């Protein structure tokens, strides 16, 4: 890209027709984190309108009992699309967008660690969104709910391709999310400015950093599940089909092992925003930085072990019910600590009630309600009554809207001046705020009571039972207030962008580094960084008489880890989650043997020979790496070619094994063994193939003469991946081929 422009220049430019075409292309091809962030947020805004209109239709249908406004199938498509859209195309893109904009600025970086990967991650969002919505033209949107419970989502019960588009779209979006998380982790670890130690990170950055790890652990689990669902639907597998030996409960385990961390993936960025805004508008540092930071880690760790509380009514058995009750209650503690710290930050402050702060105060109270009703779902018997009722709908909308959307709206009001150079209108912002407070609470408080009166979720209509009618009507009425709030927000964004008050560098008198540069920041963000010796560098500059105490060592020379290495290791971590899920699924069914082909069909000695080829290729790759380091071209090329050859031999062996199985009539659809076997080994083979392609590219590049030791970092990264693929095969070999021999 030749010369990046700021948003202000862009704004001037689009008024000049001659420059328009150029700038449109510039935005599409951009790899600048600030522009990508804006694209993320605009995409989220677009889908927010789509998902909001879907919600409006849902509530119109439910306004009165026995309503015939919508066909039940239409209604079922609407709530499926509403949930999927709001989670994957609105909340995730908008919180990723905010982080994408603010995080590099806060640590004094010029951009994200991998700008092209950043663009790729963003473009997954519109691409996934289009795939999801294309289903409407291809025979109907998915109508199976946003968690797509099997076996309803399987071909016998959902024969239209809606569920296929749903799965493929989420797979694409998942890849986008993982690539953003990899980028975030590498950026924070490798690109911090001088003086910005890990202990001095602003909480917004710290919490988003922690959040990226949840993405790395959770999204691959979903992607593995989606792959299995697609294999069931497209290749006649049986993972989740009970009448062919599959397990619908396994889908629930996989989905919620992703799905509950997902709640925190959306909520932690909201915590991040609030942890930034409340101190600034209370004119005090955050109360208990270490506790807020540590509780985020605690939440991230615990979030991976609480998914079973979505399954208290599926019959997991008492021990598992109790385990997940305990873990789910424990996660309330770090969450509670956060709420108390935010409150304590306000106490003793000088609170300014600008719009960002108003949203954060509403966030605090509404999140408190969401948290409390959340605990009631960990109190298992209460969940036995309220699960799948409107009580649950009310609970998670208090999380998703009352907490997350409110925090994001506060965050947009707060950072819009930095992004555009102009303030959003405070008056219009207050209209949005009060209409949102009124509409949101009108819609969702009453739904707790509807649930207690026995109204289940996902019903397209309901009988005229006592109180149900007026309660639903009230709930629907609130939606109009929220719609008005959304319209005013869009109007505010559009008009303030062109005519808002000029913001200046630091309109809120805030303390973190993004306010130390111009609004909007120039290409590569900073002309010069201020000295960083505490968590609030701009406070220290503004208050030389009472600076913050120095945090930690103030050493100048710190070498940060190579971002290529951090990136590939994080990627490997996510791949481990993917293969781990496939392996566990294999073992799950291995533990319930059935008739038909099993591991006994496999030719173990022959596979061992091919495995040795693969393992040997790790050694040859290492030799090739040594060749590159020592600048011996022939050695590097030779060992690399041998690596590729060995990998190729392994693949030929696998193809041959498949062929022999097909000859004896065993294919993916034969039984549970064949479904799990072909899935696990097939995905491994696919990774070997991709690795080979990567190595071939290196071979070609080196052959052509681009052979400098400076390339070592990227070559090393490819090596890590290649070794990882071998390690996965160790586990597959032990599980699939060796384990049955031991039994």
């Amino acid at each position: 890209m030749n010369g990046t422009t700021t948003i202000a220049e862009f704004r001037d430019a689009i008024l000049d027709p001659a420059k328009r075409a150029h700038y449109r292309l510039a935005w599409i091809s951009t790899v600048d984190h600030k522009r990508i962030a804006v694209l993320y947020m605009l995409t989220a805004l677009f889908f927010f309108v789509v998902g909001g209109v879907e919600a409006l239709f849902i509530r119109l249908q439910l306004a009165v009992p026995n309503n015939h406004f919508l066909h039940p199938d239409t209604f079922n498509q609407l709530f499926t699309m509403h949930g999927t859209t709001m989670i994957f195309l609105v909340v995730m893109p908008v919180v990723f967008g905010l982080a994408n904009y603010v995080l590099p600025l806060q640590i004094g970086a010029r951009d994200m660690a991998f700008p092209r990967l950043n663009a790729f991650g963003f473009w997954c969002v519109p691409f996934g969104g289009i795939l999801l919505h294309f289903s409407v033209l291809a025979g109907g949107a998915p109508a199976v709910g946003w968690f797509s419970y099997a076996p309803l989502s399987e071909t016998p019960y959902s024969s239209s391709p809606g569920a296929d588009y749903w799965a493929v779209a989420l797979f694409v979006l998942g890849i986008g999310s993982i690539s953003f998380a990899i980028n975030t982790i590498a950026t924070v670890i490798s690109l911090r400015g001088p003086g910005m130690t890990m202990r001095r990170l602003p909480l917004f950055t710290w919490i988003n950093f922690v959040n990226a790890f949840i993405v790395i652990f959770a999204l691959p689990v979903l992607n593995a599940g989606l792959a299995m669902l697609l294999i069931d639907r497209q290749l006649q597998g049986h993972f989740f089909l009970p009448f062919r030996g599959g397990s619908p409960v396994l889908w629930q385990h996989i989905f919620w092992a992703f799905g509950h961390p997902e709640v925190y993936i959306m909520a932690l960025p909201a915590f991040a925003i609030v942890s930034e805004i409340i101190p600034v508008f209370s004119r005090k540092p955050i109360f208990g930085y270490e506790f807020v930071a540590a509780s985020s880690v605690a939440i991230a760790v615990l979030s991976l072990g609480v998914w079973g509380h979505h399954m208290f009514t599926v019959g997991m058995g008492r021990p598992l019910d109790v385990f997940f009750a305990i873990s789910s209650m424990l996660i309330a503690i770090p969450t509670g600590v956060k709420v108390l710290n935010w409150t304590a930050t306000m106490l003793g402050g000088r609170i300014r009630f600008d719009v960002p702060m108003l949203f954060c105060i509403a966030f605090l109270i509404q999140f408190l309600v969401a948290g409390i009703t959340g605990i009631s779902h960990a109190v298992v018997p209460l969940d036995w009554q309220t699960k799948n009722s409107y009580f649950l709908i009310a609970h998670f909308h208090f999380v998703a809207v009352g907490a997350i959307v409110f925090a994001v709206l506060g965050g947009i009001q707060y950072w819009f001046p930095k992004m555009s150079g102009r303030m959003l209108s405070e008056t219009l912002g207050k209209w949005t705020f009060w209409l949102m407070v009124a509409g949101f609470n009108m819609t969702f408080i009453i739904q707790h009571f509807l649930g207690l009166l026995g109204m289940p979720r996902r019903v397209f209509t309901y009988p005229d039972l006592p109180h149900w009618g007026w309660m639903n009507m009230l709930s629907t009425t609130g939606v109009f207030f929220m719609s008005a709030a959304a319209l005013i927000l869009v109007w505010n964004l559009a008009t303030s962008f062109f005519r808002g008050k000029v913001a200046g560098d630091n309109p809120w008198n805030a303390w973190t580094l993004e306010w130390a540069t111009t609004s909007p920041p120039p290409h590569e963000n900073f002309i010069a960084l201020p000295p960083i010796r505490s968590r609030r560098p701009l406070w220290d500059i503004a208050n030389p008489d009472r600076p913050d105490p120095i945090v930690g060592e103030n050493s100048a020379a710190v070498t940060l880890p190579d971002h290529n290495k951090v990136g590939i290791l994080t990627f490997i971590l996510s791949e481990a989650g993917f293969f781990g899920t496939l392996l566990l699924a294999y073992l799950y069914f291995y533990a319930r043997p059935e008739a038909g082909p099993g591991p006994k069909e496999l030719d173990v000695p022959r596979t061992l020979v091919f495995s040795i080829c693969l393992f040997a290729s790790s050694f040859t790759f290492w030799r090739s790496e040594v060749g590159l380091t020592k600048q011996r071209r022939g050695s590097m090329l030779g060992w690399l070619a041998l690596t590729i050859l060995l990998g190729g031999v392994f693949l030929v062996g696998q193809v041959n094994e498949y062929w022999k199985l097909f000859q004896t009539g065993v294919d993916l659809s034969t039984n549970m063994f064949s479904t799990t076997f072909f899935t696990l080994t097939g995905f491994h083979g696919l990774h070997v193939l991709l690795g080979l392609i990567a190595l071939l590219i290196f071979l070609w590049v080196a052959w052509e003469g681009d052979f400098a030791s400076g390339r070592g970092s990227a070559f090393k990264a490819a090596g890590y991946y290649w070794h990882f693929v071998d390690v996965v095969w160790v586990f597959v070999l032990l599980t699939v081929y060796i384990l049955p021999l031991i039994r």
Partner: protein
Amino acid sequence: MHTSNALDPQSPLARAIYDLGIVSGVVFALIFIIVTGAIIYAIFRFRAREGEPDPKQIAGNRKVEIAWTVIPFLIVVFLLVMTLGAMNRADPPPAPSPDLVVTGHQFWWQADYPGSGVITANEIHIPTGKPLSVRLESKDVLHEFWVPKLTRKMTNVPGQPNHIWLQADKPGIYIGQCSEFCGTQHAWMRIVVVADEPSKFEEWQRAQLLPGQAAASDATAKGLALFQTSTCINCHAIRGVAGADLRVAPDLTHVASRKQLAAGIIENTPANMRLWLKNPQHIKPGALMPDFEFTDEQLDQLTEYLSTLR
């Protein structure tokens, strides 16, 4: 009017959950009042005024932090102890063999009484005062059995039978419905539980065991013939009618004794029965019963037959 109000428990099982709800509700209310109180206090007490300098920069207090980590922990331990007790009261281990098997279908319920051999649909009769061990099954997708006044909810999982207890203290009608999304007509997969004094329940059970017997008339005979020669018999069972023993769809042996049709979407009157037979896809679009395009005369005969199957 019958309700499905979880705040009005009518069995020891549902009451165990309700009592736990009250205790936790008090704890929750206290938490809410204290924290919101602190927030509101801060809003009014620490409002910024023009020209004031920034306040004292307090960055935290370790003792306070430890206190409000420990206090939530103690609350959680208390709730956990209460939870474990209530779990055992609301959901004791199953009996060796079930008194009742409830099977979910798209979009209706079958109820089997293994002790007596009664099989019926959508309307479950139980004797008062006696806990029934209920096995939950599914013939297709996931469903969920939820009658809030009487017991916990539980998913009907195909291939994995689940268990609940069901009990009612007093005679009455308790309603509920499927609470796990199961397809197009999930909304109209309602449950009616009729609790009767044990003697009355026995009476009902005896009547249900009799073969289906319509009023004797020319029209009902023609209706029966239609039932046998149209495709009805491929899915619906009527005990006493030769060949009518498939239960893909609700058992119709005593269909006229039930209060509602099509799992709760309309009251069971002869007029509604006729409407239903005429155009089921209009009344319950997506239900698995197709439109047959009977003539008016056929509709009269079939209605006459079915609505006298008491």
